[in-house]
């Protein structure tokens, strides 16, 4: 996984939350890389640890959070070893964040121009006038019409979609290396969602930032991400390129997630869902945390934690099903269909690029 172009390397991260009931093991040994210029989507249901992961990167965890092990390397420095003050100079400068709900993430009593200009004044020591001039440019860049007249308006004078544009402007004003987007479109109308996602992609090209995109919406992932990491119960259970995750998933949890996503050609009248609820992270179960909800669970799943098995150079999954000795199982119908589509796509692709090379590898996977 080591790579020259990695901008962020998270290794063996473990985060517990101290509560009266005991330690909640929110992040259990998570490792991932973020490459320069890419969009990495972290997908998972509520409580899987997506947000805690990004909060830990930002150094903004709640006071009862306890980072028991791991490292987060950014530009050869471990963010976890930084003091509060050092983290302050990284936040909003090198790493910025977009939050979920634009209706509540802007200060209701501060003019939006000043809110956008604030990171410039804090990090670059810029004078207010100059910072406001740059804020104005940024407002135009994120598509706020009539920016000259609106720079002195307050958040309540904007619609939800416009507010999220402002939040994006705040995050990008210092051209951060890394942008963390924590479900940035969840609180928006579907039509506005598409606009915001397009804007983010457009701006990513313009200012060449890497994005960590947190979401539970797989539909959004397909359009945004280069690579996807699937999280479950505080762990990453599968990661790969967006095509690999969507068309050749290996972990039963990913199967469940993908099957429960409605598609245009989904047949039958009931949308499949994953039965049960995620485990209590106060006392995580031994073995694979997903075993209890997993129709394909093996005996070993309840006893030993599965390691990552390599599927391809970019695709790994933590499930015993990939062990050479594991019984062959047939994934749900929908997944099989996806895999077939993927194989066909790969064949096409390879046929176009290298017509002479045979394509036996993809065939095997079915």
């Amino acid at each position, binding site marked *: 996984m080591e790579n020259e172009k990695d901008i962020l390397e998270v290794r063996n991260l473990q985060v517990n939350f101290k509560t009266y009931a005991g330690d909640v093991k929110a992040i259990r040994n998570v490792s991932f890389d973020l490459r320069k210029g890419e969009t990495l989507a972290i997908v998972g249901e509520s409580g899987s640890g997506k947000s805690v992961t990004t909060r830990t990167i*930002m150094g*903004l965890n709640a006071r009862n959070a306890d980072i028991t092990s791991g490292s987060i390397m950014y530009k050869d420095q471990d963010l976890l070893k930084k003091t*509060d*003050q050092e983290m*302050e*100079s*990284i*936040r*909003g*400068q090198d790493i*910025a*964040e977009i*939050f*979920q*709900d634009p209706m*509540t*993430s*802007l*200060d*209701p*009593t*501060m003019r939006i121009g000043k809110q956008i200009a*604030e*990171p410039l004044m*804090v*990090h670059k020591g810029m004078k207010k006038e100059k910072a406001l001039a740059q804020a104005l440019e940024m407002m135009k860049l994120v598509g706020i019409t009539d920016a000259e007249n609106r720079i002195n308006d*307050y958040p*309540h004078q904007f619609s939800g979609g416009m507010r999220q544009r402002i*939040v994006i402007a*705040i*995050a990008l004003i210092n051209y951060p290396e890394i942008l963390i987007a924590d479900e940035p479109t969840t609180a928006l109308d579907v039509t506005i969602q598409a606009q915001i996602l397009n804007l983010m992609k457009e701006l990513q090209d313009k200012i060449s930032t890497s994005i960590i995109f947190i979401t539970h919406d797989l539909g959004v992932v397909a359009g945004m991400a280069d690579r996807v990491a699937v999280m479950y119960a505080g762990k990453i259970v599968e990661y790969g390129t967006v095509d690999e995750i969507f068309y050749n998933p290996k972990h039963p949890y990913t199967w469940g997630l993908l099957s429960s996503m409605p598609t245009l050609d989904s047949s039958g009248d009931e949308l499949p869902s994953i039965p049960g609820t995620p485990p209590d992270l106060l006392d995580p179960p031994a073995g694979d945390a997903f075993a209890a909800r997993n129709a394909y669970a093996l005996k070993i799943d309840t006893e030993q934690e599965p390691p990552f098995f390599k599927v391809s150079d970019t695709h790994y999954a933590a499930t015993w099903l990939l062990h050479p000795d594991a019984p062959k199982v047939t994934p749900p119908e929908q997944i099989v269909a996806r895999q077939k589509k993927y194989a066909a796509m790969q064949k096409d692709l390879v046929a176009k690029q290298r017509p002479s090379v045979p394509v036996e590898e993809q065939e095997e996977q079915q």
Partner: protein
Amino acid sequence: MAKYLAKRIFYLILTLFIVITVTFFLMKLLPGTPLTNQAKLSKSQIALIYEQYGLDKPVWQQYLLYLAGAVRGNFGTSFQFSDQPVSYLLSSRIGPSLQIGLQAMIFGVILGIIVGAFGAMKQNTWVDTTATIVSILGISIPSFVLAVLLQYYLGLKLGWFPIAEWGGFIYTVLPTLALGATPLAESARFVRTEMVDVLSSDYIELAKAKGLSRTGVIYHHALRNSLIPLITIVGPLAVNIMTGSMVVENIFSIPGIGEQFVKSVLTNDYPTIMGLTIIYSFMLCVVLLITDILYGIVDPRIRITGKAN
């Protein structure tokens, strides 16, 4: 804005009119007259005085006469003191009351904000607990009890402050403390709750994500937003101080309008009671008006623009 002010001033006058009316008739329901305990006067003398002051007329006539006078700025002459017009009597006494009231308000609210803000910033630590205890005590101990305690301990036992006298600033310290305890406690409790709320809000998270320091976050974002709702309780707090001052002024022998009010009610000094009622209602209305205007200034969401839409 001008239109809004004009409307508010109209309501203020309307309020004063209603207060005058209600108080006038209530006051007449009080047992006795100003001359009830005057044993030295004969019946005919009393009748003569009644006639002189118009007290022999039916109550509704007296009411109309009073209104007619009040509109022209004539609030009558005090019955307690010879030849003292009410307006003169009260204007000479309002100074000490305003001084004590304002001092108590400023001291209480500012200290309350500090105590409340620290309580919220150090949530669930000993600082927070202390702040909470201070506010519970301040709210539950009536100002007159505190006044007596302060007099006894700080005045009599320790001798730090003079008591039952009126002179310079040093004489105002104890009454200010006694009266300021309630606004202190109320605003501390209020600010703490608001601040805890604000500190856990998304925009504070965003401010931190921008890289603002802890003090920067508090100063630029948290404080203003948690102080806005405080303005709503400034009005009631002012009322609290005004009513509290009546008893506290008596305890500390402050020559203010509160002390005068108590005396006047006890002696059925009708014109003075009416005059004081008008002053109190007027101050209260003005405080509420200022509160509303202030609210608009600090919170852009409810700014009074004067535009039709």
